[in-house]
């Protein structure tokens, strides 16, 4: 009998339920990128002079550089002059000048359709939400309660206006404007994103969540997120993202910076479900993201959890700089690719402080004709004593036409370091599937059970309701007719 799993792509077909487009009047600037564009964006946001200069510095550096091409990713050249760098629903553009500015009803509907409540009246229990539509943040819930505790949760644009000292103190200190090509592009043109500040000793009682939505065509989305946890503070943050189905590629280049001072803890989770293009690889989001956490203080801890289930191209390595002694970095990742999707993702753990520890758990699932690469760096600097790393990178292949790669770099320059690395690549087990099917469970559900089981260690890191969402998302990704 022919091995059913060998009959490739038809086995697994996703259905993208977030692919609709919202009709809104847009305030759009012309396509193209030059210093004028940047000044225009900065002006639209009503930014102070220092911010404009900061952006320009990034832009000037970016102009001199070229796109990095070392990742195992294949995509045509991106024409940066053919992208619109600012688009906002018209009714929104004045929001930040007027406290009781209305949210465009179409935008509100969009988020309702996506299951994201943006009104205070309909807010989620235990989760504060910021929603970003194309280039602007449209709503942030739970503000008052958080404010009473001294926690700031707002859009980055508001933060630049209302808390300039905090922003100036921290922005670009983890990912400088000249860090890499995409980060510097983001620094030049970022339009919105979230800002979180949790003061000393405060434990944020709710999950903070941002939901990013690309709606407009030919628009890049460049959000910037900055999270600061002062001494002993704790915050758990989650971001989600979707985009309409379009047959042209769209660029998304985000930067996220996390800063944890002494004894602070930041948990950052992502459920990424950008439109991935169709089965032939037409359309989809190019996702070039720089995420980095800085364990600046002693005993601080930063955890990244990511479920990467969408985007045509994913280039993303959430990292931890473990500077404070005894600080801890964690990276838990599930990356599922299907059809013609390509993902090159992983992490960097840079051990600078003594007795710093890091854990990496990566689960890659490839199906269809996709390519899925884990790329990770564990580095222990020469004078960092007693550091530990544990890495486990597992890949599962569903079908015979996909590929999986594991590219671990280990640079232990101090002899006291203990580094453990495990990696496996396997085909989804026919015996496991048969066992489940022999109990009445159909093949599709059996695949989804096995794959979800494979990812359990990572899903366990997510807040409860998001773990459920992640499980469902994976199921959806693995749904389809069997060839």
């Amino acid at each position, binding site marked *: *009998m022919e091995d059913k799993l060998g009959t490739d792509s038809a086995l697994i077909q996703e259905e993208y339920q977030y692919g609709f487009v919202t009709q809104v009047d847009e305030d759009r600037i012309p396509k193209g990128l030059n210093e004028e564009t940047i000044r225009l964006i900065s002006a639209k946001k009503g930014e102070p002079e220092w911010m404009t200069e900061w952006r320009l510095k990034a832009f000037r550096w970016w102009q001199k550089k070229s796109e990095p091409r070392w990742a195992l990713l294949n995509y045509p050249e991106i024409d940066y002059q053919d992208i619109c760098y600012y688009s906002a629903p018209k009714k929104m553009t004045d929001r930040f000048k007027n406290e009781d500015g209305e949210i465009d009803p179409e935008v509100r509907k969009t988020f309702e359709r996506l299951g994201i409540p943006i009104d205070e009246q309909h807010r989620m229990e235990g989760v504060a939400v910021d929603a970003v539509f194309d280039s602007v943040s449209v709503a942030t819930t739970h503000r008052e309660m958080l404010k009473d505790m001294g926690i700031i949760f707002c859009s980055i644009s508001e933060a630049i206006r209302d808390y300039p000292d905090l922003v100036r103190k921290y922005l670009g200190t983890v990912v400088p404007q000249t860090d890499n090509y995409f980060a510097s592009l983001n620094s030049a043109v970022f339009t919105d994103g979230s800002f979180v500040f949790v003061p000393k000793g405060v434990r944020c009682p709710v999950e903070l969540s941002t939901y990013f939505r690309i709606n407009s065509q030919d628009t890049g989305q460049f959000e910037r997120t900055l999270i600061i946890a002062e001494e002993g503070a704790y915050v758990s943050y989650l971001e989600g993202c979707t985009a309409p189905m379009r047959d042209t590629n769209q660029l998304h280049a985000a930067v996220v910076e996390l800063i944890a001072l002494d004894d602070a803890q930041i948990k950052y989770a992502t459920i990424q479900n950008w439109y991935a293009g169709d089965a032939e690889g037409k359309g989809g989001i190019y996702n070039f993201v720089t995420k980095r956490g800085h364990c600046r203080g002693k005993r601080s801890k930063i955890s990244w959890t990511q479920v990467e289930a969408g985007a045509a191209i994913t280039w993303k390595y959430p990292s931890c700089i473990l500077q404070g002694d005894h600080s801890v970095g964690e990276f838990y990742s599930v990356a599922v690719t299907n059809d013609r999707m390509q993902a090159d993702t992983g992490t960097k753990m840079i051990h600078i402080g003594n007795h710093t520890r890091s854990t990496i758990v990566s689960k890659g699932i490839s199906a269809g004709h996709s390519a899925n690469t884990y790329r990770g760096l564990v580095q222990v600097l020469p004078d960092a004593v007693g550091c530990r790393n544990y890495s486990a990178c597992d890949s599962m292949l569903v079908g015979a036409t996909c590929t999986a790669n594991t590219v671990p770099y280990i640079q232990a320059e101090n002899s006291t370091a203990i580094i453990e690395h495990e990696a496996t690549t396997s085909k989804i087990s026919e015996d496991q599937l048969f066992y489940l099917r022999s*109990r*009445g*469970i159909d093949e599709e559900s059996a695949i989804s059970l096995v794959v979800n089981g494979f990812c359990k260690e990572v899903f366990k890191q997510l807040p409860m309701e998001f773990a459920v969402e992640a499980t469902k998302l994976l199921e959806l990704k693995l749904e389809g007719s069997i060839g």
Partner: protein
Amino acid sequence: MSSYFEINELKAEIEGKPILNGLSLTVAKGETHALMGPNGSGKSTLANVIMGHPAYEVTGGEILFEGENILELDPEERARKGLFLAFQYPVAVPGVTVASFLKHAHDAVYGEKKLKAAEFLKQLRADMDFVGVDQTFLNRYLNDGFSGGEKKRMEILQMLTLRPRMAVMDETDSGLDIDALKVVSMGVNKLVGAEFGLLVITHYERILRYIHPDHLHVLIDGKVAFSGGPELVKRLEEEGYDWVRNEFGKEALMA
């Protein structure tokens, strides 16, 4: 009597290697049959083919369950018709808890609406007590790190949960201690009755003291070489398969 479960001239191979060579066997409703045979004679192959393992290719013959040839059905469809296989080597499924697996399986066979989660759990807990599986296993990953005996009990627990009408047990007794053997047999005997057919694959007489077969078959080189009454178990245990080979082998191998 109309046949309940009937295998006719079944031929099957794996990776081009013939394993079953025209095997026939009939289990009537309400009967228990024992199947014995030397290592490698094809017992597990038969069990897997009955359940529809995709790695085995059926090259001839038929398997009828209540008159329907099930060879065209997917494993899950066979399970939903009331077939069950207790595996000789149950595989582990990391990350999938016993509770969630059993609920999925039960719902797949009986439909989601049939039992509320609470009722299901109540019944499940009772079954667990019956076969001596600790309640903490509900939250463990299926067969992951289970001892040999625990895996076998888990197979019987699944069987009680799914209440099949025709079951094949592939060496469920192997590796069980005396107490476990009794418990497992009691579990099976809960299902044994007028509406149930059972095929017990075993190497040992001792399980047949608890589960009483009506007939016994000896499989040699992928064919039933000999069938008889339960009284022949003793002789097999004492004299081994050479006796069958000498007496029936030539004939069996002639085909």
